[in-house]
């Protein structure tokens, strides 16, 4: 077990290292000339050079990367080009908000998605399955700005049930915050519902068709008990990993949702940074998403290995 964890942890670290290289490459090397990118194609070369010097971009690449990552590890994510202040507080605050939104979305979508998948699997190829599967699938690929706009129109403008701006008043308690976050969470729920339902449906059907389910049914167990004790137990294990694989999207992929609903998360932070070409902010934001994702998948793998006796065995023997 510890061997497995150690290896898994080393994998995560490698991934993060590569991610940092990638982000650094795209953010600082690929543009060729950050100063030029910021100042635009028409700018004076002198001005460009001056800006690059200011960013320390005239130093060797390896040195730049080293400095950047070393500072990052110490919590110094660099200075914002726009605000002239350290990036870290922005990132920390935005990450906190994103996690809140992600948590709400998860708490809504995980039970719903699993329920949907289970219902679809139990009624496979019947109308209810078609509705859940196709509906979920379509919702998954529907751009959030389509669903988001529709939600704003219906619940915000016409019915006025929910605030369309996800900025809760200062000092709001958790319940008030929740009230403000529900509407932006719905597009996420829509996007993830189909995904989780589909995965759940597939593993449910696999479990339902399995020999051990047949054994359980032929034991004379009630259907309910077969489902709860034998089918779900095995079918839901893969769902953990599926859900974890969506954290990257949930933490940082929400540009549209966060912009539409004015939510101060990592997505909108990155979006603003991108618009303003605030590279330090952009790189830090993307790296934070990667770290969150790596941590989430690591946790999911650990959870999976705890819940799945076969993994324990394999690694014990390994």
């Amino acid at each position, binding site marked *: 077990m510890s061997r497995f964890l150690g290896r898994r942890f080393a994998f995560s670290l490698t991934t993060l290292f590569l991610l940092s290289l990638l982000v650094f490459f795209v953010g600082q090397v690929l543009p060729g000339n950050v100063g030029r990118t910021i100042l635009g194609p028409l700018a004076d070369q002198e001005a460009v050079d001056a800006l690059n010097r200011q960013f320390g971009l005239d130093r060797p690449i390896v040195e730049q990367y080293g400095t950047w990552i070393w500072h990052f590890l110490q919590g110094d994510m660099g200075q914002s080009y726009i605000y002239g202040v350290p990036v870290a507080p922005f990132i920390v605050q935005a990450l906190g908000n994103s996690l809140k939104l992600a948590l709400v979305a998860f708490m809504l979508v995980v039970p719903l998605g699993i329920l949907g998948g289970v219902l679809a699997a139990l009624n*496979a190829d019947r109308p209810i399955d078609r509705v859940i599967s196709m509906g979920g699938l379509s919702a998954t690929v529907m751009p959030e700005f389509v669903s988001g706009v529709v939600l704003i129109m219906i619940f915000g403008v016409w019915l006025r049930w929910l605030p369309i701006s996800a900025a809760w008043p200062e000092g709001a308690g958790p319940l008030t915050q929740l009230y403000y976050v529900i509407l932006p969470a719905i597009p996420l729920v829509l996007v993830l519902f189909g995904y989780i339902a589909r995965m759940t449906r597939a593993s449910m059907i696999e479990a339902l068709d399995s020999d*051990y389910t*047949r054994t359980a049914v*032929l034991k*004379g167990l009630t259907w309910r008990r077969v489902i709860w004790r034998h089918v779900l137990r*095995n079918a839901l294990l893969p769902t953990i990993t599926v859900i974890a694989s969506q954290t990257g999207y949930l933490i940082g992929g929400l540009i549209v949702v966060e912009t539409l609903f004015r939510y101060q998360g990592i997505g909108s932070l990155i979006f603003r940074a991108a618009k303003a070409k605030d590279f330090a902010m952009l790189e830090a934001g993307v790296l934070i998403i990667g770290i969150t994702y790596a941590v989430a998948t690591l946790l999911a793998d650990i959870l999976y290995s705890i819940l799945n*006796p076969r993994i324990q065995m394999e690694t014990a023997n390994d």
Partner: protein
Amino acid sequence: MTKPTLSLDRLSVGYRSGEREHAVVRDVSLQIAPGEAYGLVGESGCGKSTVALTVVRYLPRNGKITGGSVNLDGADVMQLGPEALRSLRAKKVSMVYQDPGKALNPSLKVGRQLAEVFEVMGVPPAEREPRAVEMLKKVRIADPDSVMQRYPHQLSGGMQQRVAIAMALANDPTMLILDEPTTGLDVTVEAEVLDLVADLRNEIGASILFISHNLAVVAKMCDRVGVLYAGMLVEEGPARDIFGSPSHPYTVALLRCMPHAGQTKTHGLLESIPGFLPPPGAQLSGCPFVKRCPLADGRCRAEIPELQDCGGRLVRCHYPDRAANLPPSIEAGDVLPKPPSEAAQILRVSNLSKTYGQGNHAIRVVTDVSLSLQAGETLGLVGESGSGKTTLARMLLGLVPPDPGGSIELDGRPLAGSLERRREDEVKAVQIVFQNPDSALNRSHSVARIIGRALRRLGGFRGTDLAKRLDNLVEAVRLSPRHLTLRPRQLSGGLKQRVAIARSFAGDPRVVVCDEPTSALDVSVQAAILNLLTELQAARAVSYVFISHDLGVVRYLSDRIAVLYLGRVMEMGPSERVFGGPNHPYTEALLSAVPSIGGTQTNRIRLTGESPSAANPPPGCVFQSRCPRKIGGICEVSEPPVTEAEPGHFIRCHISAKDLMRIQLQNKGGASTRRSVQSAPSVATLS
């Protein structure tokens, strides 16, 4: 007659695929009396498992009963409401199937799954666990408390099946269905499980429906037997009668396909059944067997025969009395391979080992194997799963590089361990026929492309030359040019294996490794493939390394046999000597484990205990942990020497060949069951 426990009345079942309904069980009627063991045999696709699933009303979603009824212990199964059906499953009927690893829930401990049966029965929670332990003891699990705490994947296949049987018997059913319960298990394990079932029969008094493709197993286990063909019951009667004097041409032909005890290739080719099973759902206008039956006439084609009573048995044939004189499918005078005359060694293997992993995790799957192969000779490699026979074969081919130290020589010249470093002519000299043609043939390439590519690469043929060679080769493996444009999935299993054989012969190989080439095939097809291999050997003077777990097949084809256990050669010698004795105790156990139809069953040598893992082999003799002939401390301490019992017959044992011979003759006389029982407890604790 007493009221039968199970009665099927003109049962028909179909599967829906797309818009069509395919009949898989047609009009099957049978009864099983209380306490009776009824065997249902037939080749794959004949509908046996569907019958079993219909009895418990657990057909797949697309399955549908299209006619008839099932009556189980007085209840009409088709008419039961959900609760009644559940109760029937809980109390009256149990089922054990193939692949126990899948039948047990992987994420629940064995104890919990077993206790669940008692939960369904309404046993108070406190009593469930003790009763579960009791059940495990009943199926001879030596350490039930520890097994209760384990997950299924932590048990061996044999143990898993015991647990499954324990679960099936826990509710004391009136009807026990065993659907291929030993298929996929090793011979010795199969024998144990079968012994267990046979022993328990007396205790439980349940009726048994035993389903198997293995005629010998059914013959051993059952009172009465029904033979299914294309979803129809073609013959039914007492086991002894059916196997002794079959009355349906299909049954007759099927029994002839199997190599008889002692039959070898020098005696002549095997009989086979030409043609194919009608596909599921085919519209039958006459006897389902008509296209393959040498006796068929106009009436057989026009009219589906009824099951008729022929003196204590039922036969679905218009001419049941003619079956006994069914003409043989092979003409006399076919070319037979001559035994190798001059001892030209083609392949020589010395001290070959293979270790996977490193350090603490090293697993040595082949240890210090030396053997040789002569021109035109067949060397049989026998052993159970984990014995290293496939790894050994792959080392010969160069697919798996051996550990340093050993050597492989071809025609006296050393052969590189890895394929990449072998020369073209060395590569084409050693080829293989794989076990599973579905895996061995590229499913997206046509037959012509598969064989043509081999001819081009291995034979070096181009253009018209290649086309000519292709035709020759296709003809040689008895395929027709029609097949050339087809893709593997459009071919039956037998035809696929012919394509694979054609491919391996494309470069005129010196040695062909046959890795269980017929184990995925039905008996009737197996014979044809064995015949083909025999003919090719005769025509091309090729040598075979023939791997199989089926001793009958090995005996038929092999000139010499090597028996492997845990990566070591335990015994090697000429075929007739290995089958005649004296034997290594392991060989002895293997031989005695094989069920045979003939009924001249020798006393079983029971191996108890689990087969050890190659990662953790026992000290001393690797077989000592299961050996019924273990003589004491020496077996646990030192590796046994290899002794030459007779010229060319080697045995790796501390017991001398002479002593072995003596013991084994005694056993054949019927005296040693006691000995094996005695030895059982001492090793069982090792499990």
